[in-house]
Structure formats: structure tokens, C-alpha cells
């Protein structure tokens, strides 16, 4: 991995070429969930449906586990993985809370208070 300036942003995985190439099939699998028939097939047998895609085993397991940050780490992009959430009947805020490591009421409270603070989120070198 070539070090890029944006790798210094804490808690943000920028969806650049490297992430996009790594996550291509994972994200294209997510796109397939835009069709009701495919959602039904996925729900009926998640493993069998995933095995139709040339994804890595790690990516498939992250999907089966609904390990949202694990999907991101392996090239997933939230605009794509949110289609799995929609298939599950989850709201965006529900997965945002999980991905942020807080409960959903805590996440909602953070949003009502103006959102995630910029303090400490500018650079990995910032004082905590």
C-alpha cells in the first residue's frame, strides 16, 4: 500500500483506486441486491448466493457476519454495503451506529448535538 496524505485522516477509509480494486466484486455483489429476486435468493441461502461471486473468503465471511467495518477494510464502500442493510431491513443510522462502535441511541444523540466532533478527527497525529 502506497502511503497517501489521506491515510492520515482518523476513522476514514477513503475509497480510492486501491480500495476500489480490492472491493470490486464485493461491491458488485451488493449492487445485485437492487433486484427483489436477488434479495430473495440471497436471503434463502446467503452462503450459496455469495459463492456465485469471485469474492475473497474474508469478504464473504464479513458479509455473513454483518461485519460492516470488516467489509470496509476489505474494499467495501458504504453506498454499496448499505444495500445489504436495506435487504436486512436496517436503517442507515443503525449500521452507522454499529460502524461507530456506539449504541444507536448514543449515535442519534451525537447527531442531535451537531454530529461527530472535528476535534481529534483531523489527523492521526492530533492529541487525543
Amino acid at each position, binding site marked *: 500500500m502506497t502511503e497517501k496524505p489521506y491515510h492520515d485522516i482518523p476513522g476514514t477509509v477513503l475509497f480510492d483506486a486501491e480500495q476500489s480494486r480490492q472491493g470490486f466484486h464485493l*461491491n458488485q455483489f451488493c449492487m445485485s441486491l437492487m433486484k427483489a429476486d436477488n434479495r430473495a435468493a440471497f436471503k434463502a441461502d446467503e452462503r450459496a448466493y455469495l459463492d456465485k461471486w469471485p469474492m475473497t473468503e474474508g469478504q464473504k465471511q464479513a458479509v455473513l457476519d454483518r461485519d460492516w467495518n470488516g467489509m470496509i*477494510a476489505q474494499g467495501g464502500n458504504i453506498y454499496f454495503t448499505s444495500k445489504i442493510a436495506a435487504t*436486512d*431491513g436496517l436503517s442507515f443510522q*443503525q449500521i452507522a451506529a454499529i460502524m*461507530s462502535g456506539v449504541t444507536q441511541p448514543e449515535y442519534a444523540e451525537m447527531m442531535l448535538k451537531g454530529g461527530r466532533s472535528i476535534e481529534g478527527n483531523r489527523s492521526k497525529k492530533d492529541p487525543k
Partner: protein
Amino acid sequence: MARITAGVATSHVPAIGAALDNGKAAEPYWQPVFAGYDASKKWIAEEKPDVVILVYNDHASAFSLSLIPTFAIGCAEEFKPADEGWGPRPVPTVKGHPELAWHLAESLILDEFDMTIVNEMDVDHGLTVPLSLMFGQPAEWPVKVIPLAVNVVQYPPPTGNRCYNLGKAIRKAVESFPEDLNVQVWGTGGMSHQLQGPPRRADQPRVRQRLPRPADRGSRRPGEGPPTSTTSARPAARASSSSCG
């Protein structure tokens, strides 16, 4: 001559659309958002634009990783609401304005913007939520819409300078269209989103949290849960009055 008479900028948080679609708009949690749009709705009912050029972003609905346009302009007769995983939003089909859209495409390309011309495309919440916020829930949208999608999925998006210059070129294009049309330009999208990744280390949970598996939960549409299950209302309301969001 066509005239740009106004601009509108608004959030397009998907939960806002879901709240409307599911009849939750009058609930205390949602009231502040929708009340924030009352003045704008009254204003636009008087303005009666003929066409809205709606500058938005597609959320991996019309465009997958197979093909990623930087700027895409919709020249079709109509655009259907996309199925983003929970079925298409129950809103009217969006009617285009092919004459003005093609005129824009021609003018912009000759002005050296490398547009992608799109003649078949579904539109997701990024485009339909702003329409819902401004027009409510009519049987048909009271305007024609020209979707102009800007890539924000794949790094790099176009630069701020490029988007600014595109805006100037759009003005020139609209003003060279012979028909007398009342045109508005809308913009929508977040000024700041941390959607993409995990929390910074200080926020990291000790134990990874998970919701129960889908099988244990049953199926629910987003926005149907209790207020805390949906994206916050207040930032959206603020966005509507501060041109970001």
C-alpha cells in the same frame, strides 16, 4: 430565452424520504425537519418553476463500479425511482426535459466539459428526497427535472473549482436556450460525511457490537422504527437553511 430564477440547496438524508413515505412526518421527532421546509414550500408554490436542473449524487444506484462517470446528465423522457434494496420509493416517476437537457449537454461539451450523456437511468433518494421536501407528496411532480449526477462514490470526485466552473457553464447554456422557461438549479449533498469508515481509535468499542441477525428481526422498512432508529432530524433541518447538507 430560458432564465435561471433561483437556486435551492437541501439535504437528501434517505430517512427523511422514508419518514414521509411511511406517514411519520407529523411525529414530534420529525416535525422540526418538515416544519423547516414550510416557508420554502410556500415560496416554490408561488415560483412555479418549469424545469429544475438537479445537481445531485448517485449512491451506487444508477452507476456501479463497472462504469463511473464524473458528470452525467440525464436526457431521457423520464426517470424511475431506483430500488435501493428496500423497493423503489412510492413517489411519482420523474419527468425529464429532453430538449433543454440535450441543449445543456451540447453546450457543456462544446464548452469543454466532458459530460456523459445518459438516456436510461433510475434515480435514487439523492434526487427524489429533495423533490419530496420541496413538493410534498403530489400525484405528479409539478416540474420537469434534468438530473445532473456528480461522482462522489469513487475518489477522486471533480475538484471544487471544476464544479464552480461547471455552474457558470450551465448558466451560459440555459441562457442560450431559445424557449422561455423558468429554470431553477438545485444542489444537494453533504458538506461533510463520515459514512465510509470505522470510528477513530478513541471511539473504538472494547467489544464489537452487532445487531441481532436478520432472521431474529423480521423485516422493517427504514424509518418505521422508533425515532432513534432514523437519522437525526436536526442536522437536516439546519442544512435546509444553510445551503449545505
